[in-house]
């Protein structure tokens, strides 16, 4: 899959996961709502990584990958996967850029710190209404910043 279509796929997938999350959240089906909020954020961040932060869908050995990868100035490759890892990955990559609202959002709180993709296999992950509200707010904020980045041509 060429990178140009991967970034568009991630952009659309972010919206799809977000809408499903809100639908389930409104119906109080919290575990799956939470799952989709997490994927909405992951996909938005992956779209931004590919567009603005020099990530490619090429792994450390130069082969096509299902994940975005970045290479730092020391030649070290990083694979960007699920939350909560990708949250801090992007925060780190934005460090040193002045005036980034996204950077501020990612460093000021960590609502997905305890989010785990493996929770989808659990019988009933425990989720408070408070954490759900925080995660919805964070997902909304990140998807809004994702939209603005696509429109203005830069991470805001």
């Amino acid at each position, binding site marked *: 899959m060429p990178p140009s279509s991967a970034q568009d796929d991630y952009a659309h997938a972010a919206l799809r996961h*977000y809408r499903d999350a809100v639908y389930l959240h409104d119906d109080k089906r919290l575990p799956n709502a939470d799952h989709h909020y997490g994927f909405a954020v992951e996909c938005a961040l992956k779209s931004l990584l590919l567009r603005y932060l020099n990530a490619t869908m090429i792994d450390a050995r130069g082969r096509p990958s299902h994940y975005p990868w970045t290479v730092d100035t020391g030649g070290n490759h990083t694979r960007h996967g699920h939350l909560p890892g990708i949250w801090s990955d992007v925060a780190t990559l934005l460090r040193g850029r002045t005036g*980034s*609202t996204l*950077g*501020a959002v990612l460093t000021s709180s960590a609502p997905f710190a305890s989010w785990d993709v493996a929770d989808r296999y659990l019988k009933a992950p425990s989720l408070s209404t408070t954490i759900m509200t925080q995660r919805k707010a964070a997902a*909304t904020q990140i998807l*809004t910043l994702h939209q603005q980045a696509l*429109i203005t*041509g830069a991470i805001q």
Partner: protein
Amino acid sequence: MTTPDTTVRFDDAWPVALAVARATAAQGYDTVLVRDILGRFSLALDDRVPKVSSESADRWRTELAERLGRYAAANTVLLASDLFAPEAVFESPHLIDLPGQEVSQGHGRIRVLDNGVVGEDWAPVTTPRTEDSGVGTTRIALYGFKGGVGRSTATFMLGKHLADQGSCVLVLDLDLESPGSGPLLLREEDTPQYGLVDHLVEFALGNADGLDLVATASGISVAGNGELWVAPARGRGSGTAPYTYVDKLNRVYGSVPGTPSLTFADRLEQAVTACEAAVAARSRRPDVILLDSRAGIHDIAAVTISRLCDLALLFGSDNSQTWNGYRDLFTAWQASGQAEAIRDKVKMVASMVPDTHRAEYLSTFRDRSWACFSILYDDLPADDSTGFNPSPEDLSAPHSPVPILFTLDLVGLDGVSSPGWSEQRFVQAAYDEFLTTATRLILEGA
């Protein structure tokens, strides 16, 4: 392969995008003309009421993509109903109205969302709020498009003159890249420990309280109860660690992330307010603040002229570099709908008038200045007196220059090592009309 004569360049893209925006607005859609950081255009249409047919959207999309060349965004038409957060576009605080737009019934409104890397602070033009500047404090910017036109010397002369009239005056050296009025007014040993650059850096971390930022001008006796204070760009340092000016300057121009984030304009405004408060704490609230702005089309100048001052004195000498520069600036203000706001707060200064053929020089200067200011004046038929379009001869008009005479003796003056230089007769003669007029503008607002 695109041939050179059909290649769309930056300036060509605007009229193309605007023409399509006018067509979408004519259909009743509120339209935001978006330009991204590389200059590419898209149109955001508010299709929540009325709806846009997919045929119409596709037609506009194709037209823009075909006619804009490299200046077409990836998606040239964005519909509010498709956007994740339409309010982030249609209610953005950065939207500006298209100048001269008359919206009639069933006709949408066109607004512009221009995303530059820097320079956003040229618009909108405002004057300081009373609570910011303090009751009775007048903020005056001194700006020259081109450097080396005697701006810092004039700042000193004006500061001293106003102080001699009994005013408490604070001079801020905002020329961070090449500090001028700070070194001109303060001996090294009299310089405060910190400068404006320190406030900009420390404030970003909430660490600006207690900075020593101001000092009274060195070796200058002021008549009566007037006072002349200076806030330099660079400080003297603490003495315990090296003072690293460049390392700090490299960090001042960004916004500070946070909720809400602070723009560079906010940071600069806070620095000015802090200096004002520092003088008030040590003596009394300044009556006049003189902002010695840096030259060129730069963010500091943008914030200083557009936002921080009540009146901006625009310095210039009669040459094409000056007029091209002001023309570019005035064009940008006009295009962003700021013509009326900016012409109300600027006054031209001819800062290097040759003493030998003064009248002739000023006459030419005034005509060229008027031609340049016409960009900001209302375009009216001859018999229409409802708008603002002063004649070239109108002495009170913003374009009509206040003269400062140029003499070779002024070159290379070092205020600190030549105490009393400003009292010399040739200096007083050179600045006489400038000081009288500027003082009247500042103290009487007329």
